[in-house]
């Protein structure tokens, strides 16, 4: 029995639970000094500790603790005055110790919330997502499955293990159950993950690249009849690796659950895997027989008891919440919604802000980053961030144009030069000889503006009708507030238009 989404939400209320795993961007691993650089040759970033060689002992990365506290504070959590690591015991070949060092009943951050705003039928509405806990743990290694027909684990003849990722610090952010989102559940979930991503990025604690797995979301979904307060059986969908997938996975699970419930079947408590291609989930390990993890306090590590002064110092240094920050920028810059979204989508908001901070006019900064620079990035099929041009370069170029030392056209050449790696704008101007060498560049800019403003008059002058020049000269004098030398303006103007006196 196939149901539409509208039919599902007319009868059932979804209850969500979201678990987000974030890989921290520390230099070294959570419990050893191995590097965390992504994409290194297999097993080149391993040591006795992260390979779980007999006798090795873990030591805690201070910056990982600090990052976790920052995350907790940014999510409005209380920071526990006493927290501990615990061992989560289960056997799996990509987990070298066959236990994961995690946190169990004494996590470092508890009881926070994140507000997200989405567009509803009744206009913008804020949903509060309550955060149950934020805790620290470690990532596993990676297995490569060889010999199977599909490359999936089933049917593989053997596996090859690379432990470079084993022990990279992970922070797990777990929400309380989220009821009351109704038909907006998929969008609320997406907005929540997006907001988390922005917050984590603003804190500078993670690369938050969903496609590289540094931000991963598990979505728990259950349905109950509208009006009921009995929770339904939930499924846990893993592998949700993009914002769009969060939305699709939840929508898909809601429909799947409803179809089972409507036809009188039970929803199984199980792990499901999201498949990007179909947008559907497929059954994974059944959780009917819950694994007994035999948690106990990690005896090789001592408790974490951050002192209040440290916490307050971190709290004071927290950046503005990204959503608030964006609103403030939009007001200050007087940018229309559409342009604001364009900057966010193109991921240039930060760099535009940096350019403005260096003195550039917001509109100019925006137009360079969204215009010419975006165009070149598109052309080369690279991210804007990966182009070798910085906020400092753009601010300098904007200033040169303002000063009349560059025209827009010349400035574009300079931008190209910077991206081509020829150096800073000043160096390129010198090297390429672009710089307007006389002292009259401001005057020239005004003349160009005058000609652009009265193209017909300019054409007349070009055609040899010199008296028409008077009107243009008048405009330049006005533009320069009468401070220009009229004779010089006349000479420059005529030269510009290919004419000379007599």
């Amino acid at each position: 029995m196939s149901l539409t989404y509208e039919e599902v939400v007319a009868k059932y209320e979804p209850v969500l639970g979201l678990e987000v795993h974030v890989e921290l961007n520390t230099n070294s691993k959570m419990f050893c000094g191995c590097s965390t650089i992504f994409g290194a040759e297999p097993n080149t970033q391993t040591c006795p500790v992260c390979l779980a060689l007999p006798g090795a002992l873990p030591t805690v990365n201070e910056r990982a603790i600090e990052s976790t506290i920052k995350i907790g504070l940014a999510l409005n959590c209380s920071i526990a005055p006493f927290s501990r690591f615990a061992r989560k015991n289960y056997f799996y070949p990509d987990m070298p110790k066959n236990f994961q060092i995690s946190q169990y009943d004494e996590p470092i951050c508890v009881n926070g919330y994140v507000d997200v705003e989405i567009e509803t039928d009744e206009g913008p509405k804020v949903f509060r997502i309550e955060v149950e806990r934020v805790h620290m743990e470690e990532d596993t290694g990676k297995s490569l499955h060889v010999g199977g027909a599909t490359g999936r684990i089933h049917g593989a003849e053997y596996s090859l293990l690379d432990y470079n990722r084993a022990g990279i610090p992970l922070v797990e952010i777990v929400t309380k159950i989220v009821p009351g989102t109704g038909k907006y559940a998929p969008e609320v979930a997406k907005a929540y993950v997006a907001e988390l991503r922005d917050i984590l990025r603003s804190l500078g604690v993670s690369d938050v690249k969903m496609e590289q797995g540094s931000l991963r979301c598990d979505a728990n979904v259950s349905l109950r009849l509208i009006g009921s307060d009995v929770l339904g059986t939930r499924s846990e969908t893993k592998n949700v690796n993009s914002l769009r997938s969060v939305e699709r996975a939840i929508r898909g699970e809601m429909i799947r659950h409803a179809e089972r419930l409507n036809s009188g079947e039970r929803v199984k408590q199980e792990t499901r895997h999201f498949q990007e291609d179909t947008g559907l989930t497929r059954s994974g390990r059944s959780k009917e027989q819950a694994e007994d993890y035999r948690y106990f306090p990690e005896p090789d590590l001592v408790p974490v008891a951050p002192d209040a002064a440290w916490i307050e110092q971190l709290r004071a240094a927290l950046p503005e919440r990204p959503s608030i920050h964006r609103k403030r920028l939009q007001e200050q810059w007087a940018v229309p919604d559409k342009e604001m979204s364009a900057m966010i989508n193109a991921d240039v908001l930060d760099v535009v802000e940096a350019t403005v901070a260096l003195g550039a006019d917001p509109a100019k900064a925006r137009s360079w980053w969204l215009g010419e620079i975006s165009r070149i990035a598109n052309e080369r099929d690279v991210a804007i961030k990966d182009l070798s041009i910085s906020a400092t370069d753009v601010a300098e170029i904007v200033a040169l144009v303002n000063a009349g030392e560059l025209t827009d056209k010349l400035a574009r050449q300079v931008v190209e030069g910077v991206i081509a790696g020829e150096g800073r704008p000043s160096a390129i101007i010198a090297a390429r000889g672009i710089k307007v060498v006389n002292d009259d560049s401001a005057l020239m800019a005004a003349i160009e503006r005058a000609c652009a403003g009265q193209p017909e008059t300019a054409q007349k002058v070009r055609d040899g009708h010199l008296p028409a020049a008077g009107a243009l000269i008048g405009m330049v004098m006005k533009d320069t507030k009468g401070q220009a030398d009229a004779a010089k303006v006349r000479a420059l103007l005529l030269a510009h238009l290919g004419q000379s006196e007599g």
Partner: protein
Amino acid sequence: MIRNSASEMASKLASGEVTSVALTQAHLDQISAVDKDVHAFLHVDTEGALSQAAAVDAKRKSGEKLSRLAGVPLALKDVMTQKGIPTTCGSKILEGWRPPYDSTVVTNLKKNGIVILGKTNMDEFAMGSSTENSAYGPTHNPWDLTRIPGGSGGGSAAALAAFEAPLAIGTDTGGSIRQPAAVTGTVGVKPTYGGVSRYGLVAFSSSLDQAGPCARTVLDAALLHEAIAGYDPKDSTSINAPVPAVVVAAKAGNVKGMKIGVVKELNGDGYQKGVRTRFEESLELLAAAGAEIVEVSAPNFEYALAAYYLIAPSECSSNLARFDAMRYGLRVGDNDGASAESVMNLTREVGFGREVKRRIILGTYALSSGYYDAYYGSAQKVRTLITQDFNKAFEKADVLVSPTCPTTAFKIGEKTNDPLAMYLNDIATIPVNMAGIGGMSLPSGVAGEDGLPVGFQIMSPVMKDDRMYSVGASLEAALLSKWGAPLLSTIPALAGSK
């Protein structure tokens, strides 16, 4: 020469009377001569030891300043990693494994120029009190080859008693340094927990394990203690404070004015007659040396054994999970189509001995959901009570004393089928590990009824390890003047011994 104490050997090395190569060779010869009977060693690193010795000799010749024990040989318990040298922990599951790194203890030994002769036998993963649980066969007590040398560090203790090495490293989780010392007539010290780094010590029970020195004299133990102890950033549970002045204490051996507390609960019923006699005699000697003997009570010690046999198995069930045939060690059943899970199951069946499996299963049970509070949780509370008992006792006394073990060495095979009887060996040593304090065993003579060595245990508060050395050295001196010669000079000669 091999019957000298380590400090005597050190003096001879320093004066040039002997070279480290000659001294090392003499011990290697003794090992060749007697170890077929004693079986103290699992691996002898002849080449490595001689080249370390030659390096020390060369440095000495060039006038370089060397540490006190430079050039003196040592036997290392096979639970400590030494780069490139087989490390088995007495288990089949690690047969052939050569660690790619040095434990911090080994790093410290090398820094001090101490020559490592090889790796000594032990109960598998340090679980046992007799060294009978080694997958490579038992070690025999040099006092009587039909008897056990104690455990888990029976190999290290037997090597000392058989003059195969003047120094050894042991590890003590519930008595594995002190009980072997007691039954072999040698000295063994479990430092304060956190005093010696655990990095590279293959974990049995992380919150109880502590490496320490084994020797034939109290001063030798102190010298070795000082060489291996100290803060290690690689061990988060290591104490960041200066090492207690154990050598100074051992040299002075002064107990005048010290209060020595006799723990009421660690004596009496269940303790062999000869053990009690030697204990009383030692107390008299200490009193005569100027100490005040007081009685203290520790009512919760009777629960220590039960708590220990929950905590240690629980932690070991997790610590030993890494032996899974994936990255190192034994792999069994890797046939076409076999799964990783079945290979793990089969490897662990074949690779672990009976006692290890017994404790892993017990620990798995004690931690499992629904039983945690009743077992592991309760055991941790007992730990608190034992620590409180110690704290109260140390208000009345500077150190506490007891016999190290209830009996002298028993026969090999006598208790292998009765785990509980075996566990009772550790009844007097376990409380020390539960509270993380220091403990020492030194010989107090032989029991009249069987002529076998008896150990005297001294316990000192956290990071006051120097106190047990003061008392130990004082008692050792008193006994020596009473006997006229060290106890080990009366050990029956082994066939082929030098």
